[in-house]
């Protein structure tokens, strides 16, 4: 059972880690690749990736592209025609025209009659934007694609070096307002969110353990004062101070991480303080002391290792909380900054256009909910095993009741 959970978590972590390169391979779209002409394309819309990793082996296309019959293609041979056609198609797309008339294609490609014939033939009597994109794939050979074909490095693509037009590829989850592939962005956002969430949870756990153990070990007035600070922070609209702090110092991923850790460490500190205080009275601690161990050694070698179960359980709870916090701050524009994406920024980008383009919110929202739910379910499964009961809420509340009654006395 324990092994099963570990394997499940490890495979999810690995999946999240390799998601962005895998998504790029699958779709052919680079993360920063913008197709502004066809912004807000719906899921499944097929376009030609500008960083196409795959080419179609149509050798006849070379002869068609090589209008002058020189046997060599300059890197920007098709750039002008491609741009002219895309402008025409983009006009039709922005106007939400059902069909692009054949005449529009012919007039856009007028200086290149052979190419105009070829595209117009596939699009006889007018066709949808997507069909026209597909028919004109051979024109969308960007200089970078040409350079990747140019194996001998002479600055031109010869006949035997030519692989053919780039393959069209679907935007699996549509594209955003800059025409970037939503699926690739989602994979990137998911990874960043999970990484920030886990790192922030780990930092918060470290801070909390250190602070809680110190407070528990010092005891007396100092320990009580340290916990009083935690109590006060707990009752503060602490998040608002964090919002304020980030708004003032300026948002960045690092500041975001620090901010989340600062918000999340309090509960851990409380738990560890309680655990330390009770474990310090254990016989083995006394034995260690008799043998001459100092407080630091007792804490590090005896108390923390023996409290590892509740500590790990708390640290586990911090992960979904931190992922949510990250998404929240990034949603408000206080976290991850463009061009990087996190689930929060993706939802924030899509939310204003949810009526027309709901897929832009749906995918990152589902991913965020899915990740948090998955972690919560795993944690509950682990906690529900017999003999390993863990009741952080109850402990915290009892402790709270305890402090209140002490104050009363």
């Amino acid at each position, binding site marked *: 059972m324990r092994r099963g959970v570990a394997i499940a978590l490890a495979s999810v972590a690995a999946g999240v880690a390799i998601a962005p390169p895998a998504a790029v391979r699958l779709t052919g779209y680079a993360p920063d690749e913008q197709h502004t002409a066809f912004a807000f394309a719906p899921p499944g819309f097929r376009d030609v990736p500008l960083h196409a990793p795959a080419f179609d082996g149509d050798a006849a296309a070379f002869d068609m592209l090589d209008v002058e019959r020189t046997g060599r293609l300059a890197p920007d041979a098709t750039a002008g025609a491609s741009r002219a056609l895309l402008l025409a198609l983009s006009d039709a797309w922005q106007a939400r025209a059902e069909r692009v008339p054949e005449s529009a294609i012919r007039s856009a490609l007028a200086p290149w009659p052979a190419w105009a014939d070829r595209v117009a033939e596939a699009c006889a009597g007018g066709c949808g934007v997507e069909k026209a994109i597909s028919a004109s794939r051979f024109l969308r050979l960007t200089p970078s694609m040409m350079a990747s074909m140019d194996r001998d490095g002479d600055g031109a693509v010869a006949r035997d070096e030519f692989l053919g037009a780039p393959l069209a590829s679907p935007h699996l989850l549509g594209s955003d307002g800059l025409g970037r592939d939503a699926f690739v962005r989602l994979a990137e956002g998911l990874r960043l969110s999970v990484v920030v969430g886990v790192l922030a949870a780990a930092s918060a756990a470290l801070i909390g353990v250190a602070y809680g153990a110190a407070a528990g070990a010092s005891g007396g007035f100092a320990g009580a004062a340290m916990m009083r600070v935690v109590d*006060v922070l*707990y*009752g*503060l*609209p*602490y*998040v*608002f*101070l964090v*919002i*304020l*702090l980030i*708004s*003032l*110092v300026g948002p960045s991923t690092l500041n975001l991480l620090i901010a989340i850790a600062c918000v999340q460490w309090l509960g851990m500190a409380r738990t560890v303080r309680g655990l330390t205080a009770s474990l310090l009275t254990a016989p083995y601690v006394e034995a260690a002391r008799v043998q001459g161990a100092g407080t630091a050694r007792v804490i590090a070698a005896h108390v923390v290792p023996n409290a590892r179960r509740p500590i790990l359980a708390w640290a586990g709870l911090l992960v*979904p909380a931190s992922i*949510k916090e990250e*998404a*929240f701050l990034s*949603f*408000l*524009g*206080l976290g991850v900054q463009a061009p990087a994406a996190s689930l*929060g920024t993706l*939802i*924030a980008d*899509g*939310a204003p256009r*949810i*009526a027309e383009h*709901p897929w832009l*919110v749906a995918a990152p*929202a*589902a991913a*965020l*909910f899915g990740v*948090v*739910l998955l972690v*919560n*379910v795993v944690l*509950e499964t682990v906690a529900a095993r017999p003999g390993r009961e863990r*009741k952080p*809420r*109850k402990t*915290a*509340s*009892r402790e*709270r*009741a305890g402090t*209140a*009654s002490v*104050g*009363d*006395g």
Partner: protein
Amino acid sequence: MGRAARTLLSAIVTLWAIATGTFLLMEHAPGGPESGERRLPPEVEAANLVRLGLADAVTGPCAEGPGECTRVERRPMLRRYVAMLGAIATFDLGFTYTSRGERTVRENLSEGLPVSAAVGGLALLFALLAGVPLGLYAASRGGGRADRLLAALATAGVSVPAIVLGPLLLYLFAIRLRLFPVGGLDSPASLVLPSATLGLILASVLQRMTRAGAAGFLEGPVAKALAARGLPRARLLGVHALRHAAIPMLGYLPPAVAALLTGSVVIETVFDLPGIARHLIGAAVNRDHPMVMGVVLAYSTLLVALTTASELLLPVVDPRLRGPARTGDEG
């Protein structure tokens, strides 16, 4: 000093600490009206500083030549701090920096607070009315099908962030089904979806806590003894189990309300509500210091008030906390 007085005093100290923290944060952050980053003619700059209460016009002997001259002297930080505390005590933080003397902080807040408070209050009400009874019901059906179904729903509820649930409800009920307005505040119906978003999330938390507290009690010897004496099931659940469940819940209230308030920041953005949340980030980014102070204190007061209320309620619910004599650890 009585318990109530102590709690109130600590609430005031907390608010003072927040005000001081906010003031220091704003003092030390780069930018602001007094930073002189923007190249303005000196007379304009001086007039601005005097208008904003950051400097005084002082009349004294001129530096060169005879006669009287008027200089502008920046007020020292301590004086501004004391002035700010006074302004807070009189609920008058003056004009916002960004409105150029047209709107006061109080005007902005008194427009936004009712909206924010209504959303938060409705959400809390909904959460209590839905979460607590469902938690008791689940506890009474411990381990049964209804219990497991509610547990699964509650897990989903505590896992869903407001930035997911808000847009989802908006899309389903406002855009697709057109049951509610999409955004803005035109009618009370505009408050339904925002409150439901926050309420559902909080209700899930409360359901779990109620269930855990009540189930723990129902399994214990006290519940068995009461049941054996013929106490009606409804009374056992609705009075005794509820009271046991309420203790951890009151302890959880402050962080829950904090979560509700932060959630409301998102919700007011998603549903485009004219609450005070929009001032929070805008004012901080614009270095509108009086407005920042006003919003932070408004939120803090709300939170501290609820925390204080829950602390004062604890001994009412938990007899172990009444009076100085405590009878052992029976929990």
